[in-house]
């Protein structure tokens, strides 16, 4: 009865002329998807796309201190900012640091994560819960908190790592006087060693959990058959697991490259920005050029463009991998 009453009521309420014509208009022109997308696309356009266009324009202007204060007008300077950048040895040094860091951290994270994923897959329920809770905690720690924590662990003054290293025998840890060794101000190698440990510690859980989710989709019979045939675990991984999870590994690889290129908070804290210029990576170098005195939005823009183009190459690979997996369905 109630349902009937409700049904009769609907057309009455819907016949207000304005509502009907608007709804009909939307339906006739198939506007619904565009209306639904409008707020989201507007946000993305205003906060992500338009600023990128602006930065692209600054890259070709002499937008520096005199222009910021209004003393001189901004002018188009062609490729001037780029030639200044390419002539600066600090740029090449920071680029090298960024590339080397990613080249070490990406494989290390992927290997650690995959091994832990395989381990989780073979463990009993309780043990798996224990290990994955531990991993979850490392994953959940905010990057800034983790960076400050690692800074403290590797601190020359009361830090645990220097103390431990100084207690270990020389044949194991070399002849360096580890007590009071300053990891964060002694050049790029020590500070990026700390950062490698930090980033691997924080990002292997994501890899492990994703690999584990993939492993669960592999039919158990395949492993059963391999065991009957007496295959070694190593062979099982390369002949069964890896080929089946290849799409997942590809996406994880590309995401890791992008993330490890982007480490900003960690490098900002650990290098004590703007303290040690020889410890800059590309992110810190850009931030320094753009905002440290004298600020130059032109140089910063050129650098941001170079940085985005490098990442775009990786992103194209990511998009192609996603399309091939049929994710656009």
């Amino acid at each position, binding site marked *: 009865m109630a349902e009937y009453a409700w049904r009769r009521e*609907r057309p009455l309420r819907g016949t207000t002329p304005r509502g009907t014509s608007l709804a009909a208009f939307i339906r006739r022109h198939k506007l619904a998807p565009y209306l639904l997308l409008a707020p989201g696309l507007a946000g993305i356009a205003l906060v992500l796309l338009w600023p990128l266009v602006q930065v692209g324009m600054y890259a070709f202007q002499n937008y520096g201190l005199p222009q910021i204060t209004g003393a001189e007008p901004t002018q188009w300077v062609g490729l001037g900012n780029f030639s200044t950048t390419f002539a600066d040895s600090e740029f090449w040094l920071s680029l090298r640091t960024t590339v080397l860091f990613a080249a070490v951290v990406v494989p290390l994270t992927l290997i650690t994560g995959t091994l832990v994923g395989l381990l989780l897959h073979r463990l009993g329920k309780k043990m798996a819960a224990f290990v994955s809770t*531990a991993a979850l905690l490392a994953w959940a720690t905010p990057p800034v908190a983790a960076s400050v924590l690692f800074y403290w662990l590797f601190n020359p*003054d009361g830090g645990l790592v220097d103390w431990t290293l100084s207690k270990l025998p020389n044949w194991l840890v070399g002849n360096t006087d580890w007590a009071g060794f300053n990891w964060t101000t002694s050049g790029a190698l020590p500070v990026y060693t700390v950062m490698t440990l930090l980033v691997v510690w924080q990002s292997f859980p994501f890899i492990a959990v994703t690999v584990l989710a993939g492993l669960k989709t592999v039919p158990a019979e395949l492993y059963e058959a391999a065991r009957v045939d007496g295959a070694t675990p190593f062979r099982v991984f390369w002949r069964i697991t890896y080929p089946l999870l290849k799409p997942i590994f590809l996406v994880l690889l590309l995401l890791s490259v992008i993330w490890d290129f982007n480490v900003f908070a960690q490098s900002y804290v650990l290098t004590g920005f703007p303290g040690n210029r020889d410890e800059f990576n590309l992110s810190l170098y850009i931030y320094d050029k753009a905002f440290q005195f004298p600020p130059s939005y032109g140089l910063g823009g050129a650098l941001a463009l170079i940085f985005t183009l490098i990442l775009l190459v990786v*992103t194209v690979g990511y998009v192609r991998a996603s399309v091939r997996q049929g994710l*656009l369905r």
Partner: protein
Amino acid sequence: MSRPVAVRRIKTVSLNGTAVLVALVTLFPIAWMISTAFKPSQEIFSLTPHLTPGHPTLGNFREVISGQASGIGSVWLFFRNSLAVTLATVLVASLVSLLASVAVARFRFRFRASVLIMLLIVQMIPGQALIIALFLDFNKLGLLENLLGLILVYAAQALPVSIWMLRNFVATVPRELEEAAAIDGAKAPTIFWRILFPLVAPGLVATSIFSFITAYNEFIVALTFLGQAHSTYTLPIYVTYFFNRGGAQWGPIMAASTMYTIPVVLFFLIVRRRLVTGLTAGAVKG
């Protein structure tokens, strides 16, 4: 008969031994953070460090709460700022991405594939590349040094991945339910709120994990926007300021870091089941 059993036992023991070792190594830095937070300063700088505090104290937390240690205010102020920004971001991003995901999951329209590819590319644009223009634009709008500016940026940054993820959840809601409701005379908004919304709610939880993390951890935009306006600092900027202030106040700094970490850990533990779908669905389709 006994040999295979023994071999299997050795295997189990070594497997579990490795597992315990991995877990302990992973937990160690966090244990050290918490332990330092409860240590009095003479123990922090003791010549032989100990894993657990000999005389645990709440003094470090007291200094952080009173604002005495950082010199810019109580940790609660920055907690409130961070939570406000994070919750607002999650709400705005969820709502806007739900609308957009219905469009890409339910309708076939001309630019659908282009929109999807655009979302994939846009999520890769690094914050470092945008920060100069964002700083200048938001300066013109008068939105620097306040939390609203941060919310707008974070919500927009969370959108590409959120839409991308939610669309899978919307696609799994059977179309027949909506059609049945439409036949009964229900209008689009009723269908949306009464049928689609409750069924996509688990997906919204998964998406909100992503926007929560984005907003709660974000560093470069907050650092640049908030400048010297101490009272608007979010937790990461507060911790960094505190840390840069020097004076080796490791006890209070670790106390502040611990407090900063607790909400995410709790959140992760609560949504644990959805964590995998939430954070991997954006990257990998399960």
